[in-house]
């Protein structure tokens, strides 16, 4: 663990984004994760995406559970709000916070253990409700923090650092999401920022629950020969399926790049620049068939794999207040005993 901080070099002239911030304004203190951990690269990709999307740091809520992955919110966006919940409970906390204030960007960071073991139930319901948030799974096939036990995303046959072979079938969050009615499903690789950053930007622009499964190798416990989630294996089997341009950047493109455009409610479009033939990222069945097919071959399809901007998010469905609770006048927030009695009389 390095004892020193990343210094600020005054003479370095850094580019500024639309709100006048440099990329350094999106960083945090030095990571304490193992050197080379995929989670740190994912953090760096997030920093780039948030900078490019010109998000105000104080308008972001970083949420996480428990795990090495769940530690990473500490290491970026020092100016944001944060909540480090208990193991697997990040989605309920995000749902509650979301109900109270829908104006903020909710950025949930979880691990494959946190989200797919103890937190699987919450994840499922978050997807079903279409909670307006970005949900990252930093997926390394192991419980990194507790020293490398297989997680539910470990592939059958993958060998642990201590030599055992996994025999339990893996949970693939993307195919799980398809079955639960997810509206934004993407997979990236921490070692491929060129594709991961635009996915994260698109996730930030999405109308509801954006699930991003980031294959993020654990260099300490799952980067050996025999592991299916090592840098080398993922690189050898990565299959880049789609190439997207996020809404913030589509204006600059020519029509010839266009394959499929999907409008996002906030304005702008997410543009698919390249797709395999017969692959429609807006058609659930086409995506499911494609993923099933490629999973059989041991490939790791990456890209923004499925997108549906037509489904209302949790607020639209629940009709919750558009004004954050902390901005409502007290008289509206708590209208008093008479109002309560009137409500009760009307109902019962």
């Amino acid at each position, binding site marked *: *663990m*390095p*004892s*020193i901080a*990343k*210094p*600020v*070099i*005054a*003479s*370095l*002239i*850094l*580019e500024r984004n639309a709100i006048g911030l440099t*990329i350094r304004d999106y960083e945090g203190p030095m990571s304490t994760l*193992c*050197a*080379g*951990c*995929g989670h*740190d*690269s994912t*953090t*760096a*990709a997030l920093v*780039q*995406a948030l*900078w*490019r999307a010109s998000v105000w740091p104080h308008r972001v809520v970083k949420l996480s559970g428990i795990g090495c992955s769940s530690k990473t919110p500490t290491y970026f966006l020092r100016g944001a709000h944060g909540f480090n919940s208990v193991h697997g409970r990040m989605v309920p906390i995000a749902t509650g916070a979301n109900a109270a204030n829908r104006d903020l960007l909710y950025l949930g960071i979880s691990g494959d253990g946190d989200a797919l073991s103890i937190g699987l139930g919450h994840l499922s319901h978050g997807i079903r409700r279409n909670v307006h948030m970005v949900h990252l799974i930093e997926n390394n096939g192991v419980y990194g923090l507790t020293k490398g036990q297989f997680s539910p995303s470990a592939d059958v046959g993958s060998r642990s650092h201590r030599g055992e072979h996994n025999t339990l079938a893996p949970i693939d969050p993307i195919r799980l999401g398809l079955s639960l009615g997810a509206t934004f499903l993407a997979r990236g690789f*921490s*070692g491929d*920022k*060129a594709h991961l*950053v*635009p996915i994260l930007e698109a996730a930030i622009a999405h109308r509801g629950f954006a699930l991003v499964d980031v294959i993020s*190798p654990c*260099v300490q416990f799952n*980067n050996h020969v025999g592991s299916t989630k090592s*840098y*080398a294996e993922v*690189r050898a089997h990565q299959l880049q399926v789609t190439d997207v341009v996020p809404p913030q950047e589509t204006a600059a493109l020519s029509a010839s790049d266009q394959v499929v455009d999907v409008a996002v409610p906030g304005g702008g479009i997410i543009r698919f620049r390249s797709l395999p033939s017969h692959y429609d990222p807006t058609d659930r069945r086409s995506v499911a068939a494609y993923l099933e097919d490629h999973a059989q071959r041991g490939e790791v399809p990456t890209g923004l794999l499925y997108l549906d901007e037509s489904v209302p998010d949790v607020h639209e469905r629940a009709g919750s207040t558009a004004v954050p609770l902390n901005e409502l006048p007290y008289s509206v927030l708590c209208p008093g005993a008479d109002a309560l009695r009137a409500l009760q009389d009307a109902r019962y």
Partner: protein
Amino acid sequence: MIPTDVTDATYYCQVVDCQWACPAHTDVPAYIRLVGQGRHAEAYMLNRSTNVFPGILGRTCDRPCEPACRRGRVDDEPVAICRLKRVAADLRGNVSALAPRAARHRNAKRVAAVGCGPASLTVANDLLPLGYEVTIFEASTAPGGLMRTSIPAFRLPTAVLDEETSAVIEMGAEVRYGSPVTSMAALLADGYDAVFVGSGAPKGNDLDIPGRHEPGAAAHVHVSLDWLASIAFGHVRSIGRRVLVIGVGNTAMDCCRSARRLGGAEVRVVARRPRAFFKASSWELRDALDEGVEVLTERAPRRFVVEDGRLVGMEFDVLQWDDDATHSTVVGSELLPADDVVLAIGQENAFPWIERDLGIEFARWDLPVVDPVTMASTRPGVFFGGDAAFGPKNIVWAVAHGHEAALSIDRHCQGLAVDERPAVRASLVSQRMSVGEWSYSNDFNPVGRQETPHVELSRRFADLGVEVELDFTPAQVAREIERCLNCDVQTQFSAALCVECDACIDICPVQCLVIVDDAASGANGAVGANGANGAVGANGANGANGANGATTPGSGAGLVFVSTPLPHTGHVMVKEEDLCVHCGLCAERCPTAAWDMAKLHVTHPRAGAQTSERVEALA
């Protein structure tokens, strides 16, 4: 992109900007670390091994290292390399036990050196330990050359000069003072195995304009070199109240400041060209201004004005220059009163004592034809160095020439080819101590450059020998050494180990790393496309990348490292050396130790350097 050939030490040598810029290749970062550890004697000896006169140079060096220093690119102000050298010299204590000694057994070879300036002294310093007998002929009565006769004592105390010149001489050089060499033919006839000419550029330029030769002018118009020498030897002790100094180089600065100390109350330096085109070092000009010297620009001398057999002043053409000061027009004239005038308008070589039929060829401006690498003249066995070789330069160049000439003389005397030079030797040793721990102070310290303290003005003129600049205080030393970025601790990359996790790229505080798909993109665009932020493009060294800067001459600015293809993807790692602060974070965050921080140690060949042919020759 072509992978950088790191087996050629030149690449890593160029990263150490200061050392690369130093004519003598002083290992600056190593001595700065020693100063930081309070190991002043070792810091001094490390300096001495390359630049021979650390106490003198720590005060007077022209410091080509400082404009080159990486720190100057990082926060505008270079490390105070020169003054830290002085700290090592002043606090070194007794180093006699560490000093080089003459060989116990002579090798029966005799070398003559003409002049006892820094160039000849360096030759003696390098040859005496090898067993050579060195005889130095010196016209004047004391050693040091212009270091003694021109550089005023308020910049270089005589005691410092005496100590460092005698350290060489006492090794066993025979110096014959008051012995100007008047015939090279005669010297050669004495049968020396080699002759080194280190006689400097001893002639100060005169100004042949009307009035110069009128009686009355002669006694009050002084030529800089002679005048400064007369002051140094105590023959001149005063000057008139109103003094004009013609010229704006460093010599003019020494003259005007000397004049202030000899009683000149109104001292004016008069220059032809505008202020932006002065040749004097900024710090010397600043000191002169502090001492109340007035600087007048855009005036060209027209005549000396002599009335009633007495110099009363000078008349000048007032000039108007175009923007880049190449052309001027005369727009008026001005009379400036003066009791004395000092001419500081350059110096020249003069070799009236070298007969032109000895096979020693001369070219333009009466300069000898000298090989810039070997310092050899066109006559085998005769070598030149210092100001005598290529015209006036400075002390550290004289030292560098001396080292090369000594190497050549040794090879010549041993019957080896002079133009075959032993190789530069380099090694890299990892500085990792443990996780998060490096052998050097790798943390970037944003502290600014420390100002050299000066003696207060009122005390400066008490005596000619009051040294104006003082040592850094201990607190200043502690701050200044932390400003050095340890450029010799190099980022060393092993492509075979890289798993392309991007950790180094993400952590680098100056964004100088990028992995590039060499096949897919032109060299330039790829760096600009760094991840999503394009910030590497903003570093400005982008252009150099296309040119594959490994071959860029000069320094770390614009130098680019390109790895061999990486095992997973065949992409290449690219590093712009320009702003790297050697923080080691890339190596710290690398999971496979593909990046390491390794200390470069370079040995430049000196006289006596072993080469295989030499070992055979000695066997």
